[in-house]
């Protein structure tokens, strides 16, 4: 049986939320964000759970200061889990 820790569950939730939000915009957007994360920071979407600043910087590269709309969508989807410490940290950094 697969026993997931709280940290792993949070990571999965954050990953799925980011992917779903970007997919809503279009698959090429998700692909491009994933590619830029890897090119710039050698990281993948799940790593944004620990490094929300990477995601924030890539979104800023693509959409300028208007990345806030995407961040808002991610925040809305994760709102009910915001009490979890790691998700709270992710949301705090990405919204700064």
């Amino acid at each position, binding site marked *: 049986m697969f026993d997931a820790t709280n940290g792993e569950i949070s990571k999965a939730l954050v990953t799925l939320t980011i992917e779903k939000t970007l997919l809503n915009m279009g698959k090429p957007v998700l692909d491009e964000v994933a590619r830029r994360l890897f090119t710039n920071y050698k990281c993948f979407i799940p790593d944004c759970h620990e490094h929300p600043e990477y995601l924030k910087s890539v979104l800023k590269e693509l959409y300028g200061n*208007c990345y806030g709309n995407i961040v808002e969508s991610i925040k809305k989807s994760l709102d009910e889990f915001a009490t979890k410490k790691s998700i709270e940290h992710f949301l705090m950094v990405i919204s700064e």
Partner: protein
Amino acid sequence: MQTNLEKSQTKKYLLLSILGTGFIMLTANFAGQEVTNLTTNLLYVPVPGALVVLSIMIAARFSVKGEHGRAWIFFVGVAVSWFIAEQIWLVYDLVYQIDPFPSLADFFYLAGYPFLFLFSIYYLKPLQRAISKKTLTYVSLTAVTLLIPSVYMALDQNSQIGDFELALALSYPIVDAIVLIPALIGVILFFRGEVNFLWSLICVAIILNVVADTGFLITSMNGSYYMGHPIDMLFLWAYILFSFGVYSHIQIFKKHRPNIKSQSLDDLR
């Protein structure tokens, strides 16, 4: 990702295309009315044609899924409608040698506007939070203010043209004012530094197209319009700006070989 070199090359080609088109049209104007007419009509084949090809490419990249996907599908509608309209105009003007206004071309020109408006809405959706109610109000007021003189001019010709022609002449400033609202918002966001230049190119193209439409209305009403008039240069420049705007998106969201996303999910498991 578009590198800085690619970005500066795109801007260089954009400038060259604009200068090149301007040069061709000015040279043709010196060569006489017939050459101007032929050259301008022929320019309306590759320039809007390139836009159709590019818009189909970006729409195919996004498919119909997602907000961007829907936006680009609407944009294909604009490019195709206007391309058909330009070709109908060309056939009327060059082949039948009759005045193309009013004609089926107007139906296709006007059909492009609802698509353009819907495209702008979806295109600006990711930037929605940056658009304040105040900006929206000012922009709407500006669009309505610009609409008034154009409508007045069209109505002033009431006695000289029929009801159908008048309705058509009135339709253009109205639809222009509607599409001007999202276009002005896009340009304001660019000047505030919130989006990059290439993002705002499509909005600049819409504004240029509105300016060209107004110029066309004025010159047509006072009888000074002829095919190849400098106003046509604005229409062609608008198509070029649209094309480069679309091209920049193709560059940003082009396909890359490695599937990084699936690797990342494997890592997580």
